[in-house]
């Protein structure tokens, strides 16, 4: 019986799997064949977004199954919003089996707090707030001084204290490898010692989709389910899935001033220095973090599609455009990660 005959028989029998088997047995490399069953076509192809989604869900489920006390770090930024949606998908119709933690500098945008509280209520999950203000009030941390003061650096200690206080042994973060070159070398499961430190020269090899989450008491693992996503993937996914994000991600009028080539919003958390002139411009935020170090970009993108078009055409990375914290030095992110930063 030749291959042609078997394929004809297959079509009559409407049995999808058999054809691939027979074709392989015949040694033919079939060009992609749509397979039919129950009257519908299943073409066995997944879009790159669905492939990324599936990979992330797999990671999130592995962590839930193998760790005792995972927590999802939620900032209200677009990446953690997508990560939270993926966690929702991973366990539906059951609830997400772990709490979320917000490391709150107290200097966030109002829209972000609102979004956070609404989303957590919707999902019926617990919100843990690790507050930088509390760390300062209790004397554990000292506020930076001067017009360039930022609470961004202080987050690390508050984060580590929060993890320790609640005994969390796995913390999901929304970091992506395309964001920054230190991150491009970090594993999906990023081992942290009892001081929360990352040792880039001593990372565990990570093969296939087999993740090693073993650790001793006091150590923890940071989990990055969005490792392989890019900024554009995130926005395409937000569009495809109809995910709501805080409206500061879309173009709006705002009072801003220029500092170090970035547009900072005029807020109570930032001191406008001499020579800096606040003016109203049409801007949006590409990243959302502490208001003292997150810059806006001039933009007319008022819809998801317009944002996607803008991101596709942009020639500057999102952190390069908007993050004062990464401009401190060539290895700013690496240094912060070594200390236990996100």
């Amino acid at each position, binding site marked *: 019986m030749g291959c042609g005959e078997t394929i004809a028989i297959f079509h009559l029998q409407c049995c999808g799997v058999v054809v691939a088997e027979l074709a392989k047995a015949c040694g033919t490399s079939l060009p992609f064949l749509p397979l039919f069953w129950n009257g519908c076509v299943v073409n066995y192809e997944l879009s790159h977004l669905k492939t990324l989604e599936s990979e992330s869900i797999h990671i999130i489920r592995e962590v839930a199954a193998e760790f005792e006390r995972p927590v999802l770090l939620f900032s209200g930024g677009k990446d953690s919003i997508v990560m939270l949606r993926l966690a929702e998908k991973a366990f539906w119709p059951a609830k997400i089996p772990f709490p979320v933690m917000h490391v709150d500098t107290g200097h966030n945008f109002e829209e972000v707090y609102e979004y956070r509280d609404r989303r957590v209520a919707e999902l019926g999950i617990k919100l843990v707030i690790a507050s930088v203000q509390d760390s300062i009030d209790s004397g554990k941390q000292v506020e930076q001084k001067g017009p360039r003061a930022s609470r961004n650096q202080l987050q690390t200690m508050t984060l580590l204290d929060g993890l320790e206080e609640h005994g969390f042994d796995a913390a999901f973060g929304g970091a992506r490898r395309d964001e920054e*070159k230190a991150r491009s070398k970090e594993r999906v499961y990023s081992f942290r010692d009892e001081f929360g430190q990352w040792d880039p020269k001593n990372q565990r090899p990570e093969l296939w989709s087999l993740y090693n989450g073993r650790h001793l008491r006091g150590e923890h693992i940071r989990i990055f389910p969005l490792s392989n996503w890019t900024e554009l993937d995130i926005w395409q996914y937000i569009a495809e899935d109809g995910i709501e994000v805080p409206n500061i991600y879309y173009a709006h009028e705002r009072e801003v001033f220029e500092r170090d080539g970035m547009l900072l919003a005029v807020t109570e958390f930032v001191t406008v220095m001499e020579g800096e002139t606040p003016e109203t411009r049409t801007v949006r935020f590409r990243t959302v973090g502490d208001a003292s170090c997150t810059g806006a970009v001039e933009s007319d993108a008022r819809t998801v599609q317009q944002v996607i078009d803008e991101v596709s055409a942009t020639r500057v990375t999102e952190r390069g455009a908007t993050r004062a914290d990464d401009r401190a030095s060539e290895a700013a992110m690496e240094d912060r990660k070594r200390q236990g930063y996100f």
Partner: protein
Amino acid sequence: MSELLRFATAGSVDDGKSTLIGRLLFDSKSIFEDQMTSVADASERMGLDAPNLALLTDGLRAEREQGITIDVAYRYFATPKRKFIIADTPGHVQYTRNMVTGASTADLAIVLIDARKGVLEQSRRHAFIASLLRIPHLVIAVNKMDLVDYSEDRFNEIVEEFGSFAAKLDISDLTFIPLSALNGDNVVTRSEHMTWFEGSSLLHHLETVHIASDRNLIDARFPVQCVLRPQTEEFHDYRGYAGRVASGVFRPGDEVMVLPSGFTTKIKRIDTFDGEVDGAFAPMSVTLLLEDEIDISRGDMICRPQNQPTSAQDIDAMVCWLADETVLSVGSKLSIKHTTRTARAIVKNLKYRLDINSLHRDESAETLQLNEMGRVSIRTTLPLFFDEYRRSRETGSFILIDEATNATVGAGMILGET
């Protein structure tokens, strides 16, 4: 619809690997101005005449200070046809460990060869690792063609030399492309200097190489990750088995068997957050609902009664040792992770150590050290449900974990039951 292609690049700095990656990213407009500015600044500080594109990937402080690459770096770019993930593996220290890591999920590997130097020991090693890890497509990028006057004869010599070596390996799709990463010949667009070459440019090949058939759509395997029981009013009796399809296809109504219990039942429904689906295939993450209530937990495997994986505790595998502080030897006790199943394993036999340069088998070897590979027999405390690695990367692979240090110390590719 745009597909995802993962590829690994192998080669050392001298082969022009960073230049090639830089060229792919630059010409596909995936390098941003601030990244270029920072590379240009750093190059100037180092006293270089031109921006060194290697600095784009060498991100860690020690790497820049020592001018070496420590770890696998992941880079991303997209064209309208595909999204690409590059696992960029360094060429020197801990080479094998890094390449094995970067290659384990790759659809394609690019091995760079310097046209002036021809096929070197390291080119053969890269190709061997690619074949051992069953990367379905291998591209030999013969670089620096500009330095051999774009000579067709030189290219053909290399093709012939490499071809005779590759014949000994298990490589299903081998493509040779002559190029100059520096000048951009045959990288994104076809070269005007090599009209004799009838193949496509590297990027065109990456965009069009057929990968849909690389997946195993025959052997239905579903390792259970966790059981979903919402216990809410709306979903009172809901009991779903969450996991990612490792291979094959599952459909509602299919008769399935659950291992290790051996019970059979039928698939009632396949759920996702976005609705029921009428077919699930690798690598979809879904939730299976079954007709009958059977005791199923994490680490169990759902398959078809007439097509089951091998269930065994005595397993032969090629193992690559990844640890520098310990060695593998007969009697080593380790933790083993295979699909969603974790067990303990003891090394029963080291049949031979493979010299990955000469492919010579050293049967007198007593240990495997860092970056060494060999054929090993292990016995596990629990049966594993596996397929040969050559048939399925998902159900044919495992990692070994040191129970004292918790480090990942070995990567295994299953050959079969001992």
